[in-house]
């Protein structure tokens, strides 16, 4: 019956040599536990997970090491028991060969596990519970992209799913991990498929698609799926029919619209490995800590499929298979068509590693140098997306980004079919990847420059307004003073108390209103800005955008409310909103008040000054905490930033307090320069670029500290001297010009002098010790 199911053909495609037999000779074997596991926090698309463990902590197998940070993130679990040795930057499997944060786990060989939350009656669980179990297991697509599975299984309500496709295609040469999984664990796949089907509301069609070069897998799965409504469909072998969009086209004849996800046409696609993992997660509560990987290539003594713990260093895997380094031309993670070459063997195996390929030079010879494109059109014939690869190549070469987008560069799935057939050996895919990166960067830059322009224009406007207001105020003050004089004279003549008219109050209200109006305008603007890209954004982005819009909306509403309140207030009495409070204070004679305040400030001892600043800091802290809490409640993405702000404020308070303490007993004004390297690092992973940069600077300072103390001090003295010189020059210049900021310069010079003296003293001490 299944044979009668119609399959469609995809355009293009190629038939590279399959090379699948060699890894299928040996049965699937579990691999030993490596002495050390390296677990990257980002083994999926989306934000890296947040670390939950500390260095030195003992963990059991299955324990949560890092939790998902946001919707598009996934948990990381301990694959076995052991000790957290470090949380450091380590080379990760990524085409860039760069480092990322990883948890290094020293295994103890016991493989003792924490009790798993089994659910023998999983068939009775409801959708939410099932989804929670999938999410808790940290499953990300095992096919290669690493999209968090729980997200995919939770389509939006307006997108009813009518087809569930389980992808057993495995069209890349060499890889047989899915093949052997289907042969060995067909039951798990079928059970997993049923779970997925239930999660998606029992779609009308449930299909498992397999290329016809895996007859054993097809037979086993057909057998296992006998009593279910699951169809097992085989279709002719052709690369890249395993691509999600291509498989959908083959099995349903439908195309996923450009820039959208399959769910938008009612289809969800999952890899067979993922399906099995979902079953294990739901049934046994097993987190995703191991996977089946094909270890293949002529540079190995043994070629087979192994079930291996995530985080196992590739070196360990290779050693187990008799890797001959001299024979290998390169080391590829993934298949020969889309995999990337690894910089060295210390990288770990991750959730998306379906193959480790160690070919010899003869097997996969190094590419010949690229020749000129002869426009033969073979690439266009091979392209499964019906693009014009050579046009894209020309435009990528000339960096004509506009034309690239017009030629639908972003519909390229980077399958490599075009490069494979290119008789001139042009690395086409690399051109497309580079061009895509550049276009993305360009978009970011564009967004930033637009924002900058708005800010700058806003600033200019604000300054112009301020100038105007100052001028108006000055005039008003003048008038008021005259009036007051007149009145005073009158009152002197008549009776006692002078009461000035609260002239500036409306002005202040006016200012308040202007400010609020500006805020409203800005909020409206940002709302508009946020809405604009919404139209052409993809689904994933859309959600984020909507959140942003909501935020902007809320802001706008708040601002409008305030404005309305202010409007009401000014008409009634000038003081209900808290922001209007200073206005009230200023209602008294502003001039004398200001003078008083200034006097008070001058009279303040340094101690008092610190105290007052401490007070203000406390106030700020309270406010910041409030805000952070509010943000947290609203689940806004600003919450983190705000919380950081809070922690920073706390830090500052502590240091001020310390200063104050020091000052109080000795009463000697000795500002202790804080060493930047000693200030504690607040929280490792920070999404904020700002704190990242600061962190870096601190790290640099720390690196400096490895210099001998004396050298460091000497350096410091030198730089201080230079700076002092500069400051003095500036001060003298300022004095000569009778600058109004002389005080600031003086303060700077004094500060530097004190610091220099202190450092010199330290240096002297150091030298003595030496």
């Amino acid at each position, binding site marked *: 019956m299944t044979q009668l199911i119609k399959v469609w053909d995809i355009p293009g495609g190629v038939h590279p040599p399959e090379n699948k037999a060699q890894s299928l000779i040996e049965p699937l074997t579990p691999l030993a536990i490596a002495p050390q596991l390296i677990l990257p926090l980002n083994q999926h698309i989306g934000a890296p997970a947040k670390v939950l463990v500390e260095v030195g902590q003992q963990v059991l197998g299955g324990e949560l090491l890092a939790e998902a940070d946001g919707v598009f993130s996934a948990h990381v679990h301990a694959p076995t028991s052991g000790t957290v040795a470090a949380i450091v930057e380590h080379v990760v499997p990524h085409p860039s060969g760069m480092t990322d944060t990883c948890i290094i786990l020293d295994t103890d060989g016991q493989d003792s596990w924490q009790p798993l939350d089994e659910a023998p009656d999983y068939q009775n669980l409801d959708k939410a519970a099932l989804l929670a179990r999938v999410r808790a297991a940290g499953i990300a697509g095992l096919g290669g992209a690493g999209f968090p599975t729980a997200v995919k299984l939770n389509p939006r309500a307006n997108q009813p799913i009518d087809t569930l496709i389980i992808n057993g295609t495995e069209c890349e040469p060499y890889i047989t991990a899915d093949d052997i999984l289907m042969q060995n664990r067909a039951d798990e796949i079928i059970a997993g498929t049923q779970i997925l089907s239930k999660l998606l509301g029992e779609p009308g069609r449930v299909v498992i698609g397999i290329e016809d070069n895996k007859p054993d897998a097809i037979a086993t799965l057909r057998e296992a799926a006998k009593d279910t409504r699951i169809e097992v469909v085989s279709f002719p072998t052709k690369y890249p029919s395993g691509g999600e969009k291509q498989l959908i086209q083959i099995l349903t004849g439908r195309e996923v619209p450009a820039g959208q996800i399959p769910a938008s046409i009612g289809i969800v696609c999952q890899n067979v490995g993922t399906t099995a993992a979902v079953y294990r997660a739901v049934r046994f509560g097993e987190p995703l800590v191991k996977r089946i990987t094909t270890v293949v290539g002529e540079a190995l003594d043994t070629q087979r499929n192994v079930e291996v713990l995530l985080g196992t260093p590739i070196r360990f895997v290779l050693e187990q298979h008799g890797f001959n380094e001299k024979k290998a031309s390169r080391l590829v993670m993934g298949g020969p068509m889309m995999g990337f070459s690894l910089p060295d063997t210390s990288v770990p195996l991750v959730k998306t590693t379906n193959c480790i390929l160690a070919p010899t030079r003869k097997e996969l010879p190094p590419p010949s140098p690229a020749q000129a494109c002869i426009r033969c059109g073979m690439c266009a014939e091979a392209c499964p997306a019906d693009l014009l690869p050579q046009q894209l190549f020309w435009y990528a070469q000339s960096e004509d980004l506009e034309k690239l987008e017009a030629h639908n560069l972003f519909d390229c799935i980077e399958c490599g079919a075009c490069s494979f057939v290119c008789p001139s050996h042009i690395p086409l895919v690399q051109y497309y990847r580079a061009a895509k990166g550049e276009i993305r960067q360009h978009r970011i830059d564009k967004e930033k420059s637009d924002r900058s322009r708005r800010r*700058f224009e806003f600033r200019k406007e604000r*300054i112009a307004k301020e100038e105007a207001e100052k001028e108006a105020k000055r005039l008003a003050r003048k008038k008021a003073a005259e009036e007051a004089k007149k009145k005073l004279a009158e009152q002197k003549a008549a009776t006692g108390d002078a009461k000035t008219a609260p002239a500036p109050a409306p002005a202040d209200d006016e200012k308040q209103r202007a400010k609020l109006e500006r805020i409203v305008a800005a909020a409206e603007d940002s709302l508009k800005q946020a809405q604009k890209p919404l139209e052409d954004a993809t689904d994933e982005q859309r959600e984020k955008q909507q959140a942003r819009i909501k935020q902007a909306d809320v802001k706008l509403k708040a601002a409008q409310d305030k404005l309305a309140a202010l409007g009401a207030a000014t008409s009634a009495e000038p003081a209900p909103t808290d922001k209007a409070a200073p206005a009230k204070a200023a209602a008294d004679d502003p001039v004398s008040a200001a003078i008083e305040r200034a006097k008070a400030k001058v009279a303040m001892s340094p101690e008092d000054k610190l105290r007052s600043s401490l007070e203000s800091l406390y106030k700020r802290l309270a406010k910041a905490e409030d805000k952070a809490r509010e943000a947290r409640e609203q689940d806004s993405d600003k919450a983190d930033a705000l919380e950081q702000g809070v922690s920073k404020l706390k830090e500052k308070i502590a240091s001020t307090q310390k200063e104050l303490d020091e000052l109080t007993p000795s009463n000697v004004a000795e500002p202790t320069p804080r060493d930047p390297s000693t200030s504690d690092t607040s929280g490792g992973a920070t999404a904020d670029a700002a704190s990242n940069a600061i962190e870096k600077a601190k790290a640099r300072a720390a690196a400096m500290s490895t210099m001998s103390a004396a050298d460091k001090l000497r350096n410091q003295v030198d730089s201080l001297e230079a700076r002092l010189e500069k400051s003095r020059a500036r001060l003298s210049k300022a004095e000569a010009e009778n*600058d*109004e*900021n002389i005080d600031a310069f003086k303060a700077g010079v004094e500060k530097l002098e004190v610091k220099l003296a202190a450092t010199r003293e330290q240096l002297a001490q150091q030298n003595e010790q030496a």
Partner: protein
Amino acid sequence: MSNTAEWQTISKKGLWTNNPALVQLLGLCPLLAVSGSVVNALGLGLATMMVLTSSNIAVSLIRKTVSDAVRLPAFVMIIASLTTCIELLMQAYTYELYTILGIFIPLIVTNCAILGRADAFASKNPVLPSAIDGLMMGLGFTLVLLTVGAVREILGSGTLFANMHLLFGEAARDWTLTLFANYPGFLVAILPPGAFIVTGFLIALKNIIDHHQAQRAAARKEKPVKGNKRVRTTGTIA
């Protein structure tokens, strides 16, 4: 105004840096059409030069009296009259050449190089510089025309200075140099494609020379101070 340095720059512009044929690419129609032999090229070149010089002088003379809005029609009128004069002159003295060049003599009116110089230079400068500019631009154009004509004549028919008597009278009849005996004639060089190819090569040659000169000049020039043109966008900071 009459200093030699200025004249030199004007001359250099016309002959080389702003050559109408090689740099401005103006007046390509006659350049491609009549440069099949040296004599044709020279005839048209001289005619163009005369029109260009005299039109520059005339335009410069009236530049203060003609209003901006009607300047172009006025210039065209002047150029047309001068062209007619030249045409009549050629008809009188070099009739055969006149018949060979045919429509391209009256078409000098539409040579953008002439109107371009009138508008870009003569209408803004006094008479003498304008005259020099016209002469030099015309000379530059003529030289390019001559070079293209010579190359095409050599390639196309294997001779040089054939039929010079059309321009210089009977005495010039035996100026003809036959470079290759029994030359089969490379017809493409005489046909318009040949003109395009030869002009292209000439432009390339000029660019090569310019490039070399620029490189040498760059090597001699000292580095400018970086960032000395900066201004504050945020006003002065006290």
